[in-house]
């Protein structure tokens, strides 16, 4: 079942075209990886899907479970199950991770017509999920992302994903700045969430992450377009040959 369908998407930032005709379709149960050189538009694509202001869509469409995604507010997108794990999660001083997540979970529940989660239940749930990511109580009590190491920030993003149980999750260069141990923890956190009800879009520069989160499909985004799509082997090919072949001439992979 198609979850996200992007058709011929063109978008600009400050009048400068970044996406120049992206077409991509993801079904639930699938993990897609997007790779590509710096400045190709990978992060733009994920932020645009999440609804970040400042992008102008000049043509094209995005359907999300049959709805017009571009007509939805950022919080509506989040409440209906679109999740973005940020490359650079922001700091919110004075708000603990636990408080932040409780507020988020309850906002989502209200949107879905459910009653708010009770404090005890929430506390049990978050501890359970945090433990799996090697996060202790102290981390849940600290101000959100304030003074967190790179690894802690990324784990925190995965924790949020686990709590919000999205339908469509995007990971924006979640592997950047991670040592191998953190990478493994983050990857196993993601793998634990793979399900027939959920689609993933994993954005990365490197093949390494994809050894741990094995994608069903790999796409190369270069110069604002998907220039090549294939299976997980494509990632290996990229690792060996770099992106140069894909930015200059057509793709030969299957």
């Amino acid at each position, binding site marked *: 079942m198609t979850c996200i369908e992007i058709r011929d998407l063109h978008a600009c930032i400050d009048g400068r075209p970044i996406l120049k005709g992206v077409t991509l379709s993801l079904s639930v149960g699938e993990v897609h990886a997007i790779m590509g050189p710096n400045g190709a538009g990978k992060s733009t694509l994920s932020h645009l899907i999440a609804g970040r202001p400042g992008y102008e869509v000049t043509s094209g469409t995005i359907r999300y479970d049959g709805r017009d995604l571009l007509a939805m507010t950022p919080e509506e997108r*989040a409440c209906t199950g679109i999740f973005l794990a940020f490359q650079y999660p*922001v700091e*919110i001083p*004075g*708000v603990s991770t636990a408080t932040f*997540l409780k507020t988020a979970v309850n906002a989502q529940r209200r949107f879905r017509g459910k009653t708010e989660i009770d404090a005890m239940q929430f506390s049990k749930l978050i501890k359970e999920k945090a433990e799996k990511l090697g996060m202790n109580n102290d981390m849940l009590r600290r101000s959100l992302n304030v003074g967190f190491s790179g690894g802690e920030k990324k784990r925190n993003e995965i924790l949020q994903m686990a709590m919000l149980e999205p339908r469509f999750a995007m990971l924006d260069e979640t592997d950047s700045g991670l040592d191998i141990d953190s990478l493994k923890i983050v990857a196993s956190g993601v793998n634990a969430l793979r399900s027939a009800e959920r689609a993933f879009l994993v954005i990365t520069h490197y093949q390494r992450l994809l050894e741990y989160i094995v994608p069903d499909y790999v796409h190369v985004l270069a110069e604002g377009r998907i220039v090549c799509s294939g299976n997980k082997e494509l990632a290996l090919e990229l690792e060996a040959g770099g992106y140069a072949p894909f930015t200059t001439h057509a793709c030969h992979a299957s």
Partner: protein
Amino acid sequence: MAVDSADSVKSVKAVTDRKYKYGFTTDIEADLAPVGLNEEIIHFISQKKGEPSWLLDWRLQAYRLWITLKEPHHWARLTYPPINYQGYSYYAAPRQSSDAPKSLDEVDPKLLETYNKLGIPLEEQAILSGVQAGLQGNAIAVDAVFDSVSVATTYKKNLDAMGVIFCSISEAVHQYPELVQRYLGSVVPYTDNFFATLNSAVFTDGSFVYVPQGLHCPMELSTYFRINEKNTGQFERTLIIADKNASVSYLEGCTAPQRDENQLHAAVVELVALDGAEIKYSTVQNWYPGDEEGRGGIYNFVTKRGACRGRNSRISWTQVETGSAITWKYPSCILQGDQSTGEFYSVAITNHYQQADTGTKMIHIGRNTKSRIISKGIAAGHSNSTYRGLVRVLPRAEGARNYTQCDSLLIGDRCGAHTVPYIEARHPSIRVEHEATTGKISDEQIFYCKQRCLSHEEAVALIVNGFCREVMQNLPMEFAVEAQKLIGISLEGSVG
């Protein structure tokens, strides 16, 4: 009252009322003093209260001084049209209520209902009845002041049994004249400043607390101020004395109906802490702030001061200021006793056209005195928020220390935040630190929160609450939850 006009008016009112949910009025007959201020009015007030002559004389002295004073306009960062002091009524009391608070059974049900609507329970619960609304809430004793008079004080018997005096100041004048005479005006003399002098002349009611030596008052004491009548000023006077090694935590809350005119509120609060005593005074100020265009709202000119008279005494002010069109307020500590400590924790939020000029004064007189100031100012809309604080260290105050932190948060680009610290140090051994920051809520923070399901307003409320956490955690639990919600409500419609 024009409540029954066209439906459209009603629905407009419903929308605006949503933002300030305490904006209703209670339709109750009132005894009003004639509009205006002169010596006759002061005689009238004093007579209504059956006061002793020393108090009348004190009032008259204050009045005679006041008419020679000019309203302070030159230094605060506040602009407002001239106040017509002859345009207010200086006494308003719900009819049939005599001055002395009665037992709860005799209080007009309309008044009880008013406080119920405000969420202030005047029924006494069995003291040990444990959990209420999910909070491990201890019972709170309440003195309810409606316009010019105290209408009820709860838990008096329980407190009496422990030796704690908690009553209206009018009652204290009769019951405990020696205490009142000894301490009234001893921290804020009637000559202190324009508004304190006015208050001394016309104050009508307020709370009185005395905690005897060695006792830790086991209940939170609180006063809930409500202005109801049109064109009245509220001038309450609160006096709290903690005797040697006693301690008490006191809460103050305030609301007023939504009116187009500006109402005047000029209170005086005096705290006295003797050797080893501790007073914690918390305020959630939610007077009507005026509408989005800046019409109406309370003019709040308040003098609050605590004297740490004894060694090792401690006074701590915590305030959450969200209401009022104009706030002029500097809760201060006079650190007289050696090793005494003064603290000031403040959150001041202004939105729309509100103006707040608020801060503190820490006067270090005794040796090794310490003070700590944490101020968080949040400005949104077209509002202006100013921190104004004085740290003065006198020559005898060897080893004095102060730490001041002033943070401002701006929401949008039409508001202003200002920090005006004054430091006067006259001893070489002291340490005074001042830190200040000014920031804005970033678009990245807002987008991040929205990506986690929060609406714009929820995001702002969450970020602002985080910004204020250091101050909020000093509030008693029962108040903190309310104050947190209030922060969200105050900032509604403040899209940056």
